[in-house]
């Protein structure tokens, strides 16, 4: 290998990463020109592919990527069309509605979308890692509660230097959530109790026990005039805000989204590039073969559920340290269930989850904006979400429709011949 051949791709790689990170930060903070940096990174990526692989293969790769994106894009388009139909049928003007939905979600209230997406990325990853191991961690919500409780408690008590403190809170609280998920994991391995039921029930238990925690850590209920919340966590334990380095960013936007992005990339590496992730995938895809090749199925089930608990716990920590700074008594977040949606939508791909979470967050934020400005019930967004899910997850629908078309065309051709 000669040096220049190695040097150029290396330089490109560095540039791509720098542009990507900068662009993402800017874009997420609603500096929309950050998008051009991301675009530039994409172009550089293509050029790098051309240099390293040659134009033909680079083209092929792009084509393959396009093929992979076909189903999601078609699914989203189809569900939009269905949504338009529903709106027409129920007497709303679909154009204005969609316009305000997208304007609200992607431009006007983009920071809200980002805030919505942050916990979703974590819970989505939590559920995706379960799916990869062939498990359905439907109770991520419960692990989220545990993470929130632990983070709140530590946030109230832990007065170490800011950075250290935050890292410790993340580690300990998410571990607590992970530990909580050991019960269903062990029950699954030892007794075969289905995780859909056990994690769900453990989630209920966590939810119903949380008020006790809130009351134990809140202001004096005798004099409290408002909802029972815990006290506010120590200010040094807050996650930094974007506005501290990007002055025009929304004042509530905290760096939790960046932590979420890093986590997603890390989980992607873990699942697809590490040997332990490989084991989890093998167990999920074919437990029998995995066992025959020396992989412990039980250990990987526990590992996947524990990591799922850890990630769901991180969602709680991020919300507590970044957004709420305290724990509410009536926390009915729904991140667990929305996490299922974003994971399924992304085909359990960690990087895909970033985008589906942002889409989900934007649909929520845009839906709020839409119902505020046009009076269309926000529930239409829920229906759109449901349809997107169906049309993307039921991939077979396309090959079915395709076969239908082909056979009909064939029939017609045969008729023509006869």
């Amino acid at each position: 290998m000669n040096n220049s051949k190695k040097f150029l791709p290396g330089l490109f790689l560095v540039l791509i990463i720098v542009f990507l990170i900068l662009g993402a930060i800017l874009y997420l903070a609603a500096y929309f020109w950050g998008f051009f940096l991301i675009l530039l990174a994409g172009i550089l990526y293509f050029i790098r592919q051309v240099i390293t692989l040659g134009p033909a293969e680079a083209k092929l790769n792009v084509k393959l990527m396009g093929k992979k994106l076909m189903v999601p894009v078609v699914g989203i388009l189809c569900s939009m069309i269905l949504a338009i139909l529903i709106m027409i049928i129920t007497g709303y003007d679909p154009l204005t509605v969609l316009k305000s939905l997208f304007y609200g979600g992607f431009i006007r209230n983009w920071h809200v979308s980002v805030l919505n997406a942050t916990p979703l990325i974590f819970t989505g990853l939590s559920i995706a890692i379960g799916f990869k191991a062939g498990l359905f961690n439907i109770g991520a919500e419960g692990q989220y509660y545990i993470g929130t409780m632990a983070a709140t408690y530590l946030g109230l008590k832990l007065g170490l230097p800011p950075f250290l403190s935050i890292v410790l809170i993340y580690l300990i609280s998410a571990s607590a959530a992970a530990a909580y998920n050991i019960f269903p994991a062990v029950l699954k391995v030892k007794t075969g109790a289905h995780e859909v039921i056990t994690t769900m029930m453990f989630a209920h238990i966590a939810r119903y026990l949380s008020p006790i925690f809130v009351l134990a850590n809140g202001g004096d209920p005798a004099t409290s005039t408002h909802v029972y919340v815990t006290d506010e966590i120590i200010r040094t334990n807050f996650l930094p805000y974007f506005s501290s380095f990007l002055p025009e960013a929304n004042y509530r936007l905290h760096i939790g989204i960046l932590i979420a992005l890093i986590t997603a990339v890390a989980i992607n590496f873990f699942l697809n590039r590490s040997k332990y992730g490989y084991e989890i995938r093998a167990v999920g895809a074919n437990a029998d073969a995995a066992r025959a090749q020396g992989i412990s199925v039980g250990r990987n089930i526990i590992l996947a559920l524990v990591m799922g608990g850890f990630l769901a716990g991180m969602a709680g920590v991020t919300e507590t340290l970044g957004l709420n700074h305290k724990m509410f008594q009536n926390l009915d977040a729904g991140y667990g269930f929305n996490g299922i949606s974003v994971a399924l939508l992304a085909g359990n791909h960690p990087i895909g989850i970033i985008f589906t979470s942002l889409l989900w967050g934007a649909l929520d934020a845009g839906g709020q904006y839409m119902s505020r400005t046009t009076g269309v019930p926000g529930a239409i967004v829920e229906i759109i979400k449901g349809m997107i899910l169906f049309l993307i997850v039921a991939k077979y629908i396309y090959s079915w429709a395709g076969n239908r078309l082909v056979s009909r065309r064939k029939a017609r051709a045969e008729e023509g011949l006869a």
Partner: protein
Amino acid sequence: MALTGEKQICLEMLSIVKQFPKVLANNNINIKLYTGEILALLGENGAGKSTLMNILYGLYKPTSGEILLNGQAVTFASPRDAIRHGLGMVHQHFMLVETLTVTENIILGVEPGRGGFVDYKAAREEVRALSERYHLHVDLDEKIENLSVGLQQRVEILKALYRKAKILILDEPTAVLTPQEVDELFVVIRKLVETGVSIIIITHKLEEVKAISDRVYILRRGEITGVHRTAEATKAQLANYMVGRDVVLTVNKVPKEVTKPPVFTINNLTVIGDNKIPVVKNLSLAAAPGEIVGIAGVDGNGQAELAEAIRGLRRIESGSLLYKDKIINGDSTQFRIRKKMGYVPADRRRFGLVLPMTISENMALGHHLDKPNAGWFNLCRDYMQSNAKKLVTDFDIRTPGVGVPAEQLSGGNQQKVILAREFSWTPEFLLVSQPTRGLDVGAIEYIHTQILRMRDNDVAILLISLELEEIFSLSDRILIIYEGQIIKEFQAGGTNEKEVGFYMTGGKERSHE
């Protein structure tokens, strides 16, 4: 071409074509069946026999072609249509619901009774009468899961007869039977023919064709290559038609002297099966470097459990496994793999490969934690890919690339992936179970050659196979397993198929040889 002129044609299949997305399974097939005859459909695995019969039975729809029943054109939209027209089929994998009773299985779909209710009393009576008429005795209230394979087959036949089948299709009926059971089956078949039932037997075993059939069609690669009166054809002729060349299987096996002491030994092994009773009993054997020890036996005599015990997937009740002079009873599967014990499982799709994963990932399976496939945490994907590419070339695996999921390969190529993986890290002991099940001849030959190559590289190989032919063409020593025990040992060349077959069915050692 009136071979049996006086008889009446009851079924004709004309120009049947079946195109699957990737394979042309049947190409322009014509078949005639005469009333009251036993017709054999001979062909290798994958020749298209089962597909053809599934078309006849209404499970598949033919791409084109016509079926004539008693001279009338019929189309079967579903098995229900076929059954209504008097067809019955006994599938290779029994279509019995294990948790239901014998009676329930027999009447399923054509239950007697009014108003949607099943009249179990009437059903039992009808089934009892039927079983007595054909002398097919079986406990009618027993659940299928508690019956032996032979009895299950009997239930299948009763099921077809209960539906008043005039034409009975038997798909590989002897594959899972012991020779005695085979004999009993043949008696039953002849009795059925006497009552006017016509029979089609699908098989790939020449002996059976000779033993039972009146006429035989030979299929190769989806086409009919010959039709004969069985009495007029020789085995060699049939074999020739079946494979398309003169000799069935040729592998150059150079006799090899075993010089080293055994590397793997089993002492008095007992293993408990899924049904909680011992299935491997007090079994002992040994394998030395450079020899292939073949374990012959009828399916279900403890081979699967033995393999699982050797791999560390099943708990050992008593006895010991000795590998390189160390007891490995309690060692994990992973430990055994690291100690260079290889395994080619019988069910490659279930135990051998993770089908949704790519070829390069499958090539690393089992060694994914160790160098050079992995570092302390990460996978070395560059190495995995280059290694996979090399193996794909070495083993002539037909694939568009090493990045495609294993499920996209054909069965033969999937098996080659497993062999390549197991061979690539120079095992010292190799357990090979059913390596060529369901493969075409080309692949079989290739895989046999590779196994022999490993033997020549001083690997100790334990071969478990249900195919006597395979045992004979590969083994240096032949052990016969019956009801979980090794009941006889032969040197290759020191015996013949007939003798081995005798012992496989539990024949006692003759005192005077």
